[in-house]
């Protein structure tokens, strides 16, 4: 413990373990990991859910669930030993004082009954002897720093008056109140929209440099970590399998798990609509005694030795090591090649199959009357304003937009579940409202975002998948079951789960069941509403592969609602961008993604975080937050956030205009490209 050491390294963890006793055995949530964090640097911890990332962070501050047992050789933070600190010392001197923490869910991590000013000040007065006015001064200073306009008046606001992005900014300000030396951010942007995510990450980076903080960034998003972290630690089943400088790990991954994770990310290698590499299975629960490598069951290169012997730690250089037997060394290029070969076997000529329009949305508007309180006046909320879309047979049309932009209302209208005020939806030449339920169900089916709420927990998987047939009394019971089994095979669901309940399945399996239910009627159009955003990246890759395979096999047409632009890049033929109930840009994928015409599309593309180590988090250059749809701005709805807005934009709403085969709604569309780049 020399004084030289503590100047470079702020946190040194040796051999940290977390065990959680269960009824039958012990769950090893974290298994003897060692980590080091240098002053002023960011360490990114990546891994799938269940890999022990959050447990590690909680163990640092001893905030583990009561049943969990922590054991550590040493956790030394700036020379003080956290392993032997009492609960009182941790609470009064460390937590919130020298180590700040930001959680994933901004909606629930602020107390709704206190004003944010009170909550901010409390964090400071609790730990330090400061006057109320000093704390207030600091709170205003920090709220300004995190980019909240008019900070002094914000102090009196309550959490429900702020949007998700604003709340996360408040959380960051709160974590910074006591000038912590270390900030732990546990998935700080996962619940936020892409443009907000970029803003928040950008802000964190700026603040970190300004205050000279160190940071631990826990995330499952490799794009985020590639831009925001200096060092990276890949966790799998409670152990760090590979670590090193971000660029080194991401450019030359050595552990098969790291390689697999990277292959799963759409757009990492190769271009669109190829099969993604996928890691089969899910993270195993580490119970009982473990022999061999925890990844062996999912590893494509596993040899016998992996199942029996604990893999050795192989150091490449100072601070860069991985834990693997390396049974037969295969460079990442080779795995990429096999993925590519597989891709070549699936027909890629999707352009040939593009046929006539199968679904036409023509000038659809929809306004809800929302009443605040019992005697409040009804106010209009315009969810959709003159939306027109065409979906051609066999294509994948991606619908992109932030939460609150009217995507869900549009999909509900397309499925005939929401009656529009004006305009029409035509499916196969027939108005959707004139279709009897059974015919409609045979033509169009949805897949939802959250496989935990889209399957009825009281029904077995078999009942769920056969339900559409049962509702419309198609076939006998035996025929329905046989059909369900065929579909289960098609979506890659083992038939043994036929009589299982949804809570016995993993997230990926549940989503497969939901896909099976949607496909059993053999529909022509499938509405995929963020089908992978609730899933881990390796499972996302499996599902995206499956969806593309099924499209070819069953001749499907997808409307793919998503906010993940790398998924758009991977899946879509065409892209439609939605903002405040309007389609602001719609055209070919490559055209829209590489040469966006609308400033909003431009900002969206800028916010997309592809894996590119070394590059910084871009600032999307958008002013303010997503507006409340109850108070639509006049003129062009995007003008308050638009860097190019002028008098005309504020007063007149632009109409749709066709430029280079792309439909754009913007006064500046013709000149925006050059103006925004400069």
């Amino acid at each position: 413990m020399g004084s030289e050491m503590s100047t470079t390294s702020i946190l040194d963890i040796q051999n940290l373990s977390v065990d959680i006793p269960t009824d039958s055995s012990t769950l090893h949530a974290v298994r003897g990991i060692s980590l080091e964090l240098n002053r002023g640097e960011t360490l990114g911890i990546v891994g799938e859910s269940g890999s022990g990332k959050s447990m590690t962070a909680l163990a640092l501050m001893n905030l583990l669930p009561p049943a969990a047992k922590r054991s550590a050789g040493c956790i030394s933070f700036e020379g003080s030993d956290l392993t032997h600190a009492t609960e009182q010392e941790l609470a009064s001197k460390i937590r919130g004082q020298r180590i700040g923490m930001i959680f994933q869910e901004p909606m629930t991590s602020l107390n709704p009954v206190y004003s944010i000013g009170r909550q901010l000040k409390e964090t400071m007065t609790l730990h330090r002897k400061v006057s109320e006015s000093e704390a207030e001064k600091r709170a205003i200073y920090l709220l300004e720093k995190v980019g909240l306009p008019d900070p002094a008046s914000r102090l009196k606001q309550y959490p429900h008056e702020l949007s998700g992005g604003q709340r996360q900014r408040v959380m960051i300000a709160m974590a910074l109140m006591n000038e912590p030396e270390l900030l732990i951010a546990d998935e700080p942007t996962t619940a936020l929209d892409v443009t907000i995510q970029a803003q928040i990450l950008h802000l964190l980076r700026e603040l970190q440099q300004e205050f000279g903080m160190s940071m631990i960034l826990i995330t499952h998003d490799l794009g985020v970590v590639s831009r925001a972290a200096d060092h990276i630690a890949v966790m799998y089943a409670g152990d760090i399998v590979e670590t090193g400088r971000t660029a080194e790990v991401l450019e030359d991954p050595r552990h098969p798990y790291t390689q697999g994770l990277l292959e799963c990310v759409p757009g990492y290698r190769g271009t669109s609509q190829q099969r993604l590499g996928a890691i089969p299975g899910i993270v195993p629960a580490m119970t009982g005694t473990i022999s061999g490598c925890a990844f062996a069951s999912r590893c494509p290169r596993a040899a016998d030795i992996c199942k029996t012997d604990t893999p050795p730690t192989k150091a490449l250089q100072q601070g860069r090591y991985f834990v693997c037997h390396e049974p037969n060394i295969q460079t990442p290029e080779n795995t990429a090649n096999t993925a590519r070969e597989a891709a070549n076997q699936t027909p890629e000529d999707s352009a040939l199959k593009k046929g006539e329009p199968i679904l036409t949305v023509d000038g659809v508007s929809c306004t809800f009357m929302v009443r605040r309180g019992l005697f409040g006046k009804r106010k209009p909320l315009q969810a959709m304003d003159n939306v027109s879309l065409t979906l051609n047979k066999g294509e994948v049309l991606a619908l992109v937009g932030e939460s609150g932009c009217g995507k869900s209302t549009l999909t509900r209208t397309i499925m005939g579940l929401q009656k529009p005020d004006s305009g029409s939806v035509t499916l196969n030449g027939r108005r959707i409202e004139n279709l009897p339920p059974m015919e409609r169900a045979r033509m169009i089916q949805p897949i939802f975002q959250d496989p935990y709420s889209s399957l009825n927990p009281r029904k077995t998987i078999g009942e769920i998948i056969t339900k559409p047939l049962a509702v419309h009394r198609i076939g006998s019971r035996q025929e329905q079951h046989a059909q369900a089994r065929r579909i289960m095979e098609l979506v890659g669901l083992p038939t043994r789960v036929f009589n299982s309940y949804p809570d016995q399945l993993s997230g990926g399996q549940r989503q497969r069941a939901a896909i099976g239910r949607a496909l059993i009627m053999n529909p022509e159009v499938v509405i995929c509403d963020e089908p992978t955003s609730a899933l881990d990246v390796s499972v996302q890759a499996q599902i995206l592969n499956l969806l593309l395979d099924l499209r070819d096999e069953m001749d499907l047409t997808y409307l793919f609602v998503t906010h993940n632009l790398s998924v758009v890049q991977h899946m879509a033929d065409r892209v439609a961008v939605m903002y405040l109930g309007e389609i602001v840009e719609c055209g070919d994928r490559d055209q829209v993604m590489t040469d966006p015409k609308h400033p909003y599309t431009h900002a969206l593309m800028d916010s997309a975080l592809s894996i590119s180590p070394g590059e910084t988090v871009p600032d999307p250059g958008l002013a303010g937050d997503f507006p409340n749809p109850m108070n639509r701005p006049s003129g062009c709805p995007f003008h308050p956030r638009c860097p190019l807005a002028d008098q005309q934009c504020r007063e007149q709403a632009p109409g749709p205009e066709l430029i280079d085969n792309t439909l754009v709604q913007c006064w500046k569309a013709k000149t925006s490209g050059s103006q925004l780049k400069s």
Partner: protein
Amino acid sequence: MMTTDQTMNKSGLTATDATQEENNLGLSPTMAALKRARSHYGLKIGLGILLVMAIFALFAPWLAPHDPYMQNLPLRMLPPVWVEGGSWEYLLGTDHLGRDYLSRIIYGARISMTIGIGAATIGMIIGVTLGLIAGYYGGWLDQAVNFLVTCQLAVPSLLLIMALVFVIGQSITVVIFVIGATHWVFYLVVTRSATLRLRELDFVAAAQAMGCSKFQIAVKEVLPNLVNQIMVIFTLEVAVAILNEATLSFLGLGIPSPIPSWGLMIAEGKQAMFFQPWLVILPGISLFILVIAINLLGDGVRDVTVTNRRN
């Protein structure tokens, strides 16, 4: 077929897995529930007690040692056999009119079980139906149902019951219906709020997209998710209904007097509680055992029908 195989391989299923699993669907839901039921002690005990009680109630004329209506004034207020002065002739002693207490408890099981379970079931049917309608359809139907609840809560239910019994007449059927018709508010409130939450979930939207009617969704998708909560209220309401019947009987509006019921026995025994406490304790224990058995059964049914184990 090529692509299917590939899907299977990529998704982590090897070909051998697929063939092995070909005919192995796992147990059907009913079979699995029965299998779990066999190893669930609470369920077995609850069901056992209820069965024994039902047998006693059904075969009361053969099982009761005496005529429950036979008054024998010289032998009134005999204590049970284990208390000094008790006799083997009257195992649980006699009441203030010298009727055999054991026989009265056995006969009382008939009335009390019928009224308790019957009234709770009627309340459940009314409350759950209205709750589903209010929660799922919403709008003016919801407001109408809420108005009904307010009325029900505003009028003193005992007064209402008395008025109804007085108008319709006095019989077991009337008592069951009247108690049931005044005890549905708990069911309604719970069903309505749970339905409000459930109808926003995606599986309801999926059912709509399938072309299910609102009625089908409410009954087949939403209702199965409410079984737990309804079960809990049911076990509470059985006890409440039995005690309500006692109150009515005590006021002379429930079961016509010589017919034995546990509630009435407690009411009658109250006068002599200090010196002959068994008059209250014995029917009280019977009631307690009945409610416990229903509780155990309810919990058991919940455990057996729902699985929370991941595979």
